[in-house]
Structure formats: structure tokens, C-alpha cells
């Protein structure tokens, strides 16, 4: 456990982040499992190649054999020989809002997950521990619904133009003004898609001759945006300030490769909460480094906005910092506001520049008005501008649920990654077969979970990732914890060698 002793100057609150090491025996047995599956994978490929077995997956026809291969054979080795065997735990069809409970369509497979069939039965009220619904606004009843229905009848669903043309509605401007107030920055801009907010705006901010310092576990949208920009990318270890400072120092001292000219701009890309690790960025230290080396900071608050901080303002408020210190505040409306889309906030000149130069504002259709309304209602609720304290209660409730849920899981003996205050709770499974078994056993007990394995995580760090919600009542959490405890005993998942000191 890397228990971080917070140095007095920077942190105004305890910063407890733990990544317990994989037990060596478990690591070795995990490789054994992957070895067995690889051997059988080669056997199955051999049988498919010699037509001993029917080939279910897509391959080129005989006539296409001489052309460039369409289906990269080996690249799908893992998908067809490992993932196929356990993929019933993924992409489960739901038929309700992804709230605290969810209705799930039951499906069966008679050919080992190559194809599925619906039985027609709906599994009702499955406890939803997998969806991003931190504050519980993903619901089709209550204040949001009426307002959206009215906006839907007034504006319609689609905006068939971009922000630079007739797709610029009064609703959008109202939303951007509210987001700027919510974040405490000068101006903000809203986009219709969270992923595109990163991948389309980073290329507008940096280009050739610039340097991007990116955390190794950054989201794919940040990676794509950095790649599209054409800037030089350097990776620092996850949340490791020594690694970041070393890269910054090298960048300042040596400048660009070969010419050694100074970099035009240095942009640090970090996320507020890492959705696979459950860790929280060490923002005070990142800001201290950015000031020391005069670089820019791009903070992606996709998971932390609304979910962290006493009033839900995100990781900046969580550490009690000044929003002015973050040059580009990015976030999404998907996880905490029950909506979709993303925003970028910062100085007015930055936002005006993006309004004219960002790909999304020039080519993408704007946010749909009912979605805008959902964001407006939920954000005003969080800010208390609807005259109630419901929003603030949700934020508090989420914080309590998170700490309670994490503490109970640790008491049971599971290895839990990440920060104590992060609503994303990764429970380590390690072995590939346990990924499928965990998902199946939990669904048998009427609990929907998300499981994640290689290559989305390191090969010996497969995990189940719980997302706590303010909508989870204590009964729901206790039910989930009881079932997790039972499945943990059945599958022998309690690997932790650390016991919580009561």
C-alpha cells in the first residue's frame, strides 16, 4: 500500500490511496490460466484452419485471400479464443433507466456465447452496481422529466446544425452560462459528446512543436486527441509526481529533440478520477509543478464533476484549490447529471478561441435541447438554485455511500484499489476465469456488475468495477455487500493481506 503522507503545505485533507500488490502466487496462477487458454486457443485455431470445426467468426472469402487481410487474424486471437468464452458478462441488454435498480433482458446461448437468444423474460429490479449514475439523476420520474417533456414539445429532439450556424439555441447559451458559474470560471462551452470534447479540442489547443505530458492511464479520448494534435507525447507513470517532474525538467532543459529549441507549449493531461483505478489525481502537486515549470494544465473531470467536493464542484473543490489554476477544465454530463455531452471551461479568450477553432463547433450538431434541459435541471439542483437542498444531499449521500461501501469491502478482505473518496470501486479478481464467474454469480443473485479484464487492464489486474450512486439506499448497499461477500467466499477472492485496524 502506498499510503501517501500528505505534506502539510499542499493538501488540506487526508489523501488515502491504496494499490495493494498482487500476491505472487495469484500472479503466477493467473499466468497459468492465460497459458492454458492460449494453448487451447491455438488448438481451436488449428481445428478451424483445417475445417475440423465450424468457424463462427468473420474471415475473408476464398476470392479475397490474396488481398490485404480484412480481418487481422492474430489480432482477433484473444477475442475469439478468450473473450468469447466469458462475454455473456458484457453488453447485457437493459430495458429501463440505468438507475439504482435496472430491468435486464434475459438471454441464453446454445453455442458457447457465439450467438445469443432472448428468452423473453425480463429480470426485474436488478441492483445496478455498474452504471455511472453517481448522483442518481438517471431516472424517468421527478422534476427532470416534466421539464424535459415541455422542452421536447417546444424545441423538438434534434438540432440539425452546428453551433456556428443555426444550431446555437438560447438553451445552449443558458447552459454555458450556468456551467461557467458552476465551475467558477470565466466562460464555458458545451458539446454534444463527451469523447469528442477531448478528441476534437486538444488538437485545437496544441500542435507541432508542442509537448503533451500524459498520464499512462488516461482515457482513450485523451489519447486520441493527443495523437490527432500532432504534438509530441510523453507518458508519465500513473499519478506519479516524480515521474511527471522528471519529464517536465527534461522538457525545459533539453527542449525539442535534435533542434533543442524550447517547446512552444507544454500541456499536462490528467483526469480527476481514473475510472478503472478508482484513484484521484494529486491535483495540488500537479498545479505546483505546472506553476514551477510554467506549463499548461488540462484537467478531464469526466468522473469527478458532481461526484467530488462538498458541493459537487469536482476535484478542484475537493482539494480546496482555485479553478483559475487549471487552464482547461473539461468534464462530461454523462456520469453525474444523467445526461450526455461534455464541456470545456476556462478563460473567456480560450473559450472564444475554441468557438472559432474547435472541430466540434464547426462540424458537430449541437446538444439536443431535452438533454440540455436535463443538465440544466440537475445542475441547478446540485447548486441549490431550485430552492431545495436535494442536490447537496445527493452529493453528501454519495460521499457517505462511497466511504461505507469501500470500508465494508476492505473489512471483508477484498483487495480494493484507489482512493477512499472515489465512487469508482475496483475489486481485484486477477484470474481470467474468475472474471466470468463473478459476473455470472452476481447476476444469479440479482446484482448487475461490470467486470474488466486484459487488455483493458494489465494482464494480472482483472477486476470488477463498482460505481456507487447516491440513489443506492443503505438496504441496497447492504444487500449488495452481502452477496459480494458470499460470492467472494465461493470464488476465493479475499486476497488482501492487510486487515483494517478497527
Amino acid at each position, binding site marked *: 500500500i502506498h499510503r501517501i503522507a500528505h505534506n502539510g503545505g499542499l493538501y488540506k485533507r487526508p489523501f488515502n490511496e491504496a494499490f495493494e500488490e498482487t500476491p505472487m502466487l495469484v*500472479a503466477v496462477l493467473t*499466468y497459468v490460466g492465460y497459458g492454458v487458454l492460449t494453448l487451447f486457443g491455438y488448438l481451436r485455431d488449428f481445428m478451424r484452419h483445417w475445417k475440423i470445426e465450424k468457424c463462427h467468426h468473420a474471415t475473408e472469402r476464398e476470392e479475397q485471400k490474396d488481398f490485404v487481410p480484412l480481418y487481422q487474424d*492474430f*489480432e482477433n486471437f484473444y477475442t475469439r479464443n478468450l473473450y468469447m468464452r466469458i462475454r455473456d458478462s458484457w453488453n447485457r441488454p437493459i430495458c429501463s433507466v440505468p438507475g439504482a435498480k435496472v430491468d435486464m433482458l434475459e438471454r441464453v446461448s446454445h453455442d458457447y456465447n457465439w450467438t445469443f437468444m432472448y428468452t423473453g423474460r425480463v429480470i426485474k429490479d436488478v441492483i445496478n452496481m455498474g452504471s455511472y449514475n453517481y448522483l442518481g439523476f438517471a431516472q424517468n420520474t421527478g422534476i427532470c422529466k416534466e421539464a424535459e417533456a415541455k422542452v421536447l414539445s417546444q424545441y423538438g429532439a434534434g438540432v440539425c446544425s452546428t453551433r456556428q450556424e443555426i444550431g446555437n439555441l438560447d438553451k445552449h447559451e443558458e447552459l454555458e452560462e450556468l456551467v461557467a458559474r458552476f465551475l467558477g470560471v470565466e466562460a464555458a462551452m458545451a458539446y454534444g459528446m463527451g469523447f469528442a470534447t477531448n478528441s476534437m479540442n486538444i488538437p485545437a489547443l496544441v500542435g507541432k512543436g508542442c509537448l503533451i505530458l500524459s498520464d499512462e492511464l488516461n482515457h482513450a479520448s485523451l489519447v*486520441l486527441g493527443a495523437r490527432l494534435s500532432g504534438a509530441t507525447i510523453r507518458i508519465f507513470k500513473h499519478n506519479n509526481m516524480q515521474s511527471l517532474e522528471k519529464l517536465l525538467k527534461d522538457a525545459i532543459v533539453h527542449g525539442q529533440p535534435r533542434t533543442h529549441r524550447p517547446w512552444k507549449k507544454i500541456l499536462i493531461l490528467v483526469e480527476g478520477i481514473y475510472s478503472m483505478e478508482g484513484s484521484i489525481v494529486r491535483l495540488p502537486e500537479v498545479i505546483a509543478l505546472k506553476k514551477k515549470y510554467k506549463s499548461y494544465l488540462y484537467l478531464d473531470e469526466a468522473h469527478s464533476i458532481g461526484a467530488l467536493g462538498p458541493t459537487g464542484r469536482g476535484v478542484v473543490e475537493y482539494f480546496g484549490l482555485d479553478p483559475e489554476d487549471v487552464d482547461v477544465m473539461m468534464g462530461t454530463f454523462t456520469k453525474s447529471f444523467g445526461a450526455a455531452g461534455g464541456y470545456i471551461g476556462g478563460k473567456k479568450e480560450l473559450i472564444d478561441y475554441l468557438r472559432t477553432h474547435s472541430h466540434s463547433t464547426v462540424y458537430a450538431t449541437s446538444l439536443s435541447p431535452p438533454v440540455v434541459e436535463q443538465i440544466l435541471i440537475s445542475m441547478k439542483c446540485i447548486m441549490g438554485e431550485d430552492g431545495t437542498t436535494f442536490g447537496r444531499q445527493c452529493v453528501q449521500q454519495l460521499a457517505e455511500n462511497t466511504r461505507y461501501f469501500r470500508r465494508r469491502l476492505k473489512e471483508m478482505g477484498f483487495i480494493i484499489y484507489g482512493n477512499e473518496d472515489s465512487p469508482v470501486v475496483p475489486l481485484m479478481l486477477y484470474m481470467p476465469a474468475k472474471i466470468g464467474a463473478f459476473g455470472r454469480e452476481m447476476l444469479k443473485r440479482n446484482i448487475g456488475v461490470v467486470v474488466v479484464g486484459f*487488455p483493458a487492464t494489465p494482464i494480472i489486474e482483472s477486476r470488477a468495477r463498482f460505481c456507487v450512486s447516491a440513489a443506492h439506499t443503505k438496504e441496497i448497499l447492504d444487500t449488495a455487500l452481502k452477496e459480494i461477500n458470499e460470492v467472494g467466499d465461493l470464488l476465493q477472492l479475499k486476497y488482501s493481506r492487510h486487515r483494517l485496524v478497527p
Partner: protein
Amino acid sequence: MNSRGIWLAYGISVGVLHIILLSIPCFSIPVVWTLTNVIHNLVMYWLLHMVKGTPFETPDQGKDRLLTHWEQIDYGTQCTSSRKFLSISPIVLYFLTSFYTKYDPAHFLINTVSLLSVLLPKLPLFHGVR
């Protein structure tokens, strides 16, 4: 190749292979050691120097598709700890095998050819050479 426990798992799998071969009644000790060495080098050559690309989709737009596993280790950086370990282990196995086969010429020849087949591709000057 430098994640936790993978070197230990590699050592254990070579040991298990040797024990399985030892259990086959009709094999003598020198034959078992030579078989262990040859099978180990064949599997290492196949996995590290024959297979190209990755067995799963990577977000690098196919950059690694034409590189062998050995060339992809540590993003192509030479002389890292993983590379050193994977270069030394066949040599250690070769010394053990030579000792247990009592330097018999026939075994010696087979084992030497087998060792070279996995050592040469590991040399930095052969990086990317086809």
C-alpha cells in the same frame, strides 16, 4: 514482460516441462535435458520471434502489427531488464543441459544450434531485421 510474477511463472513452467519429460519412463537423463532445452527454445522462438502483432486490438493504429513480440517489449528499448532476463535464461538452460549430457558431441551440437536460434534474434543489431 516485466509485470509482477511473470519471470517466476516462466521459471516454474520450464521446471514443470522438465519434470513431465523426466516422468516419461523410456527417456534417459541426457535425452530429457536435451528435449527440455530444445522444446523451451522452440516455444521461445515461436512466441518471441515468429508471432507478429498483438493478439488483441491496440489503439496504436496497427503500428505494432509488423513487429515481433520481442521487438515490442518495452516499446523497443534495448538492454532492459526483461530483455536481459530472456537472453540469459536460455544460456543458463544450455549450460545445465551441457553438464547433464556429459558434453556428448551429438547432444552438444543439437543444443548449441538450438541455443543460437534463440540468441541471435535477440541481438540489438537484428532489431527489425527480417
